[in-house]
């Protein structure tokens, strides 16, 4: 579709929170495409404005306060206005979105853009808000002084949109055709404090007589007095995040279960139709359909999480949360915004890693992506449950009422959290060296989220996930299927033993022995690469129980308890072994979907490889320590 344009294009520029995205939606209709800018992980929104004489491409550039870029996002905007983005000659019109309620600060970016001497229209946004605050703006006077068209708009109620479109049309009709040499070479030198001060003086001159803010009567009570209160603030924060977390778990469950049931039905249906026990049937049902099913199972989690994040962002609360958490997070060198992905990691690392887009600094984002999988995700729960029930159920409760099993569970979560913070500090200190970026955080006014815009961006994000991560997950599922299916055997447990996966398990045994594991656990670890909870059903097969589905299966538990290690003569699953295995599980990278998500977000296989390596090493060492020390102590 991009080839149809005669090279006419609009770039939307402006401060963050100035209403750029809303204006973008009004101009293009809710049909934007989200993609990545070439070579970077910053997102780009593109749409089409239909004018009477033809379509014009509209690009929403990341919001910035100044062309002196501090982050990857802002670099994109700088390159965009310089004409360095996009192929081929284009006739570019800049629309600078300026917030009428914060005109003074917003004009700083405009002064930089005016120096570019490129065609430009000012869209004076938030006019409805300005009227409510009884702010007066004389758009015509401003237009005279700035020597560019100034169009008041209010994207909320469509006011001014038609005038803006007229202004745009007028520009493209009268302008010269696309010129390949029209790239502006601008040199942005760092201004001195005096120069910045002079710019603000100029801004004040422009606004004198054209802009009036009434002296605000401070209302007796402002929302931030509670939201940022030293005691009430953190309490509210806990409630908000608790709610988010709870809904991630609770609301996604029924949807995921329905999805899994549907996939199961589909699979069974196919099995009836196809020749029984054939390779084709197995490939289609256990490989492809299972793979597609597992990808789709992530969709509710992603959708819910991004919906929540969207509400937090749009409403302005996310900035307040960042303010409250900054001190804590900066101690490990993380951005306050890393809190949302880390918390979401307790549900599932896949959407959590995608959620790191809220972190502006690239290094911080990478570190957060690397450590998020250490937060014990919900897929580890069935394994913890099985092992605790197997090995710890016979312990008498501590102090008469505290279940040992519950303590162990809590310990596993604690280990995950501690490891995440420790590794974050380590990475920030030794790998991603550099000064801790300062905090410059604007607290935007509280606003109601725009539901249609929000829904649209959630849907877009899901689509991108399916396209980029989903394909990788599906491919890996088929590979794993092959490992477990070939070479073929009659009985399920002989099949497991003889398959490539089983052989892999045997091969790994020497490495797993110091941790207290046997080859069956090894096979389980290979299988759980597809999804951690698969460990349980794989163990079921390994113990000759066929396809054991339920983790609470008493038969699996008793089978495991009775298993004796042929080499030591002792039970395989002593409490120490169970502990060692759980520690391994909590720290190891055993989820190919997570790796796929990391690859998608970082656009490189380097980082998933690093993730896999360091987590496996960490898991092995920790498990080793637990088992060896525990053995010496006589457990």
């Amino acid at each position, binding site marked *: 579709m991009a080839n149809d344009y005669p090279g006419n294009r609009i770039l939307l520029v402006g401060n963050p929170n100035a209403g750029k995205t809303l204006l973008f939606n009004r101009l293009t209709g809710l049909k934007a495409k989200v993609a990545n800018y070439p070579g970077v992980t910053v997102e780009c929104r593109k749409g089409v404005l239909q004018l009477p004489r033809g379509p014009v491409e509209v690009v929403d550039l990341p919001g910035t306060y100044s062309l002196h870029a501090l982050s990857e996002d802002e670099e994109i905007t700088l390159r965009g206005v310089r004409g360095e983005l996009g192929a081929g000659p284009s006739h570019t019109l800049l629309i600078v979105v300026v917030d009428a309620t914060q005109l*003074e*600060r917003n004009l700083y970016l405009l002064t930089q853009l005016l120096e570019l001497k490129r065609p430009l229209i000012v869209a004076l946004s938030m006019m409805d808000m300005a009227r409510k605050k009884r702010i007066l703006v004389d758009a015509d006077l401003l237009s005279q002084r700035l020597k560019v068209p100034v169009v008041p708009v209010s994207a909320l109620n469509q006011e001014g949109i038609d005038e803006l479109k007229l202004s745009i049309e007028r520009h493209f009709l009268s302008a010269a055709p696309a010129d390949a040499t029209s790239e502006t070479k601008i040199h942005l030198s760092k*201004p001195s404090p005096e120069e910045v001060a002079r710019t603000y003086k100029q801004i004040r001159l422009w606004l004198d007589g054209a802009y009036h803010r009434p002296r605000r009567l401070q209302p007796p009570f402002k929302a*931030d007095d509670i939201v940022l209160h030293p005691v009430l603030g953190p309490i509210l924060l806990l409630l908000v995040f608790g709610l988010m977390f709870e809904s991630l778990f609770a609301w996604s469950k029924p949807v995921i279960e329905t999805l899994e049931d549907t996939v199961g039905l589909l699979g069974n249906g196919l099995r009836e139709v196809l020749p029984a026990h054939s390779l084709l049937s197995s490939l289609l049902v256990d490989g492809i359909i299972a793979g597609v099913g597992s990808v789709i199972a992530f969709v509710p989690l992603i959708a819910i999480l991004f919906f929540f994040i969207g509400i937090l962002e749009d409403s302005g609360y996310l900035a307040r949360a960042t303010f409250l958490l900054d*001190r804590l997070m900066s101690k490990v060198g993380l951005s306050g915004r890393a809190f949302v992905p880390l918390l979401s990691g307790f549900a599932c690392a896949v959407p959590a890693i995608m959620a790191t887009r809220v972190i502006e600094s690239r290094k911080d984002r990478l570190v957060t992506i690397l450590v998020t999988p250490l937060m014990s995700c919900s897929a580890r729960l069935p394994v913890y449950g099985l092992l605790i029930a197997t090995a710890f159920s016979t312990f008498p409760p501590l102090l008469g009422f505290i279940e040992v099993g519950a303590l162990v569970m809590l310990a596993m979560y604690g280990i995950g959290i501690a490891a995440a913070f420790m590794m974050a500090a380590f990475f920030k200190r030794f790998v991603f060296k550099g000064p801790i970026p*300062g905090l*410059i*955080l*604007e607290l935007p006014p509280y606003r109601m989220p725009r539901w249609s815009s929000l829904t649209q961006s959630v849907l877009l994000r899901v689509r991108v996930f399916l396209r980029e991560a989903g394909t990788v997950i599906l491919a890996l599922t088929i590979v794993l299927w092959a490992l477990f299916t070939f070479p073929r055997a009659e009985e399920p447990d002989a099949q497991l033993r003889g398959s490539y996966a089983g052989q892999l398990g045997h091969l790994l045994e020497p490495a797993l022995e110091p941790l207290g594991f046997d080859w069956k656990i090894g096979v389980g670890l290979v299988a759980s690469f597809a999804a951690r909870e698969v460990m349980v059903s794989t163990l079921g097969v390994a113990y000759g129980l066929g396809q054991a589905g339920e983790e609470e299966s008493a038969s699996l538990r008793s089978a495991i308890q009775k298993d004796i290690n042929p080499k030591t003569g002792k039970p395989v699953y002593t409490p120490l072994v169970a502990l060692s295995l759980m520690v391994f599980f909590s720290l190891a990278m055993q989820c190919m979907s997570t790796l796929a998500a990391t690859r998608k977000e970082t656009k490189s296989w380097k980082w998933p490889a690093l993730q896999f390596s360091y987590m496996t090493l960490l898991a092995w060492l920790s498990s080793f320590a637990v088992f060896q020390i525990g053995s010496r102590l006589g457990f």
Partner: protein
Amino acid sequence: MNIKNKMDPFKPHDTLPLSELSRGIRAILQTPARSTRPELLRLMEMGLVEGNEVKVLRHGIWGGPIHIRICGTNLCLRREEAQWFWVQPVSS
């Protein structure tokens, strides 16, 4: 920093760093301290320049960021960065 202040004959005696401005007091910004950190430029571009008025709305707990009002906007910055900016309280 306060010692430096007392020794500088060009700074009036009640100038103080923004990080030490009390809550609710309005002040006028003076020339900031020199620093090569990129954050200094950005903070100036957000309005922390000589002649502009600033007001502290709250201090974050346990050494957290400072919430200020500048150029009609709400901005938060860390104490370390707030120390660069000298201000002169306005007698109200």
